[in-house]
């Protein structure tokens, strides 16, 4: 177990916070919000309202108000769905997988990442519904007993998706809540007023007794153990939405690992995007240090290279397979109508992460922030390229087409970001965004005698 928050601070024992400092500092982030917070929240709610209006407009008149141009039957909505599901993955990776690996640096960032996961899944889950032609029959996708005696088609990857995404939502939410309980209890014992009442209820009677910790630790461990295969499976299932088809550019065995790596890649980028301002605003420099960012950057580098490798493999296999449809599809990707999308993707995801080989860049928080924004952009375009560009150039030459999104899609896309940030803002001001318990855990408690 690490003995310090970060290597830098390890040599400076006096900078290492005490338990009560940790509780105090983190609980301090939950104070009364500033004006800036309300302005930001107001802005987010305005954009969200625009998205909701666009959605209502679409439901009223039909999905034709989106820019769909057959044969491109999936567009911005599914792109955004995959994007948000991808974002979600990093949270579970950091909280569950790194937990199992006992990675010390996760403790300061995992709460943010996990909250991001839940909100990203909440955002992602909306899109399969938004893209439905008849959203009012969305419940038909669930196998519930009905008088028609009809069930769903379990062979359809879309049904797998329903199961995977809802399972993922449930499990990641449980994971977040379970992790929060001791923290809420800690805050509960620090604050007064209505917040005290709120936290008394939400801490579910947590006291940190020996029995509670006994069951809690086990439960948390097993949840982590369950979440680990889940996180790998969810994006695999999402990738099978595409890979199970016969669309050239979709039908590839590489898709599951490729998507999982891409998901984590985009998720890490989003964590960085969120962490940098959060750290600044909440003055958490003491807890979230350059060391954390460098670790995130290394993760970004690793997954980015997997993604870059997948790009190369895709193009190579398209050529190597000799399959004329695959070849044409990938030729079209690189040099067809949508070359700009493909090259945005390749540059942002394939080439840019290579800069992280330079330690200087890895340790520069502004550089990482900028890069994370580009990675987000690049990953959105990756899904756009996979979905839209492949569909626009399939088997039947006569039926090839070109799709341009409409204002409705852009509004709903913007609304989805607003929806996500709304939840995140509400969360950040009401619940600890850095895990009190886990940060404490890596700092040894004071002893009478030196450790044996």
């Amino acid at each position, binding site marked *: 177990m690490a003995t310090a928050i970060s290597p830098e601070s390890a040599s400076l024992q006096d900078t290492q916070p005490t338990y009560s400092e940790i509780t105090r500092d983190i609980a301090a982030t939950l104070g009364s919000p500033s004006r800036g917070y309300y302005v930001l929240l107001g802005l987010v709610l305005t954009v969200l309202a625009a998205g909701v209006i666009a959605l209502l407009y679409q439901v009223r008149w039909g999905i034709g108000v989106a820019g769909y141009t057959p044969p491109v039957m999936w567009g911005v909505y599914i792109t955004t769905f995959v994007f948000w599901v991808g974002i979600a993955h990093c949270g579970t990776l950091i909280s569950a997988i790194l937990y199992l690996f006992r990675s010390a640096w996760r403790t300061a960032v995992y709460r943010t990442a996990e909250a991001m996961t839940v909100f990203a899944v909440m955002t992602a889950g909306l899109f399969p519904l938004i893209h439905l032609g008849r959203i009012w029959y969305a419940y038909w996708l669930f196998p519930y007993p009905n008088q028609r005696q009809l069930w769903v088609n379990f062979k359809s990857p879309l049904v797998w998706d329903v199961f995977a995404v809802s399972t993922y939502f449930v499990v990641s939410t449980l994971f977040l809540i379970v992790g929060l309980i001791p923290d809420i209890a800690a805050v509960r014992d620090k604050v007064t007023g209505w917040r005290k009442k709120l936290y008394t209820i939400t801490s579910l009677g947590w006291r940190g007794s020996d*029995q509670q910790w006994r069951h809690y630790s086990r439960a948390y461990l097993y949840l982590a153990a369950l979440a680990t295969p889940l996180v790998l499976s969810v994006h695999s299932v999402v990738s099978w939405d595409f890979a199970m088809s016969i669309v050239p550019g979709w039908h590839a065995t590489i898709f599951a690992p490729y998507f999982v790596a891409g998901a984590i890649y985009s998720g890490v980028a989003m964590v960085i995007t969120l962490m940098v301002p959060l750290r600044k605003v909440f003055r958490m420099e003491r807890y979230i240090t350059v060391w954390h960012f460098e670790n995130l950057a290394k993760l970004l580098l690793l997954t980015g290279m997997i993604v870059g490798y997948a790009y190369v493999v895709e193009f190579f296999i398209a050529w190597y397979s000799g399959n004329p449809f695959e070849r044409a599809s990938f030729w079209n990707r690189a040099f067809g109508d949508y070359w700009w999308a493909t090259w945005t993707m390749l540059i942002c995801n394939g080439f840019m992460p290579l800069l992280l080989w330079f330690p200087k860049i890895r340790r520069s928080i502004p550089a990482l922030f900028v890069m994370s924004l580009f990675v987000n952009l690049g990953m959105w375009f990756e899904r756009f390229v996979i979905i839209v560009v492949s569909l626009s150039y399939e088997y039947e030459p006569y039926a090839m087409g070109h799709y341009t999104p409409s204002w409705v899609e852009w509004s709903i896309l913007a609304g989805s970001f607003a929806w996500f940030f709304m939840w995140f803002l509400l969360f950040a001001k009401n619940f600890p965004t850095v895990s009190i318990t886990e940060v404490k855990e890596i700092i040894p*408690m004071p002893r009478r005698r030196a450790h044996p």
Partner: protein
Amino acid sequence: MSKTHPGGLLAAFTQVDAAAGAIRELKEMGYKDFTVYTPVPNHEIADAVGHKVSSVRLWTLIGGLTGMSLGFLMSIWMSLDYPLIVGGKPIPSWMPYVVISFELTILLGALATIAGLIVHSVRDTKPGAFDGRFTDDMIGIFVPCPVERRPAVEQLLQSSGAAEVRVET
């Protein structure tokens, strides 16, 4: 805190080895039903208390297995209940149903784990006194004991290095 408890002594420790020592001594004295509060899970304390491994893991196992079989059974039965041929594939075809089964394994496993956590925690939580500092930076030990035995226990706690011992009624 509204819970009534039998009354006893509540000690607060700042040092983890001191608290662990106190626990061991309490156990030697024959006390079993004391409660230890820690802000973070701690191995030394846990070792000193010496509980068995939590049986929440059984819940996880049973939930997971239930989910797995339910996933297969549900998808196969539902396919057969209104059989329709799609894409020239067998009507119940186990391969795609692996995904359903897997997801339900995880889902029911996780739900069962939470259920187990709640059930066990509620069952094993004994009423006792508590202090808000125990979630912050102090380790608390609550020893329920009748009035006549309090001095001995207090003596024990004080000597183990308790920062504070108070009587709770």
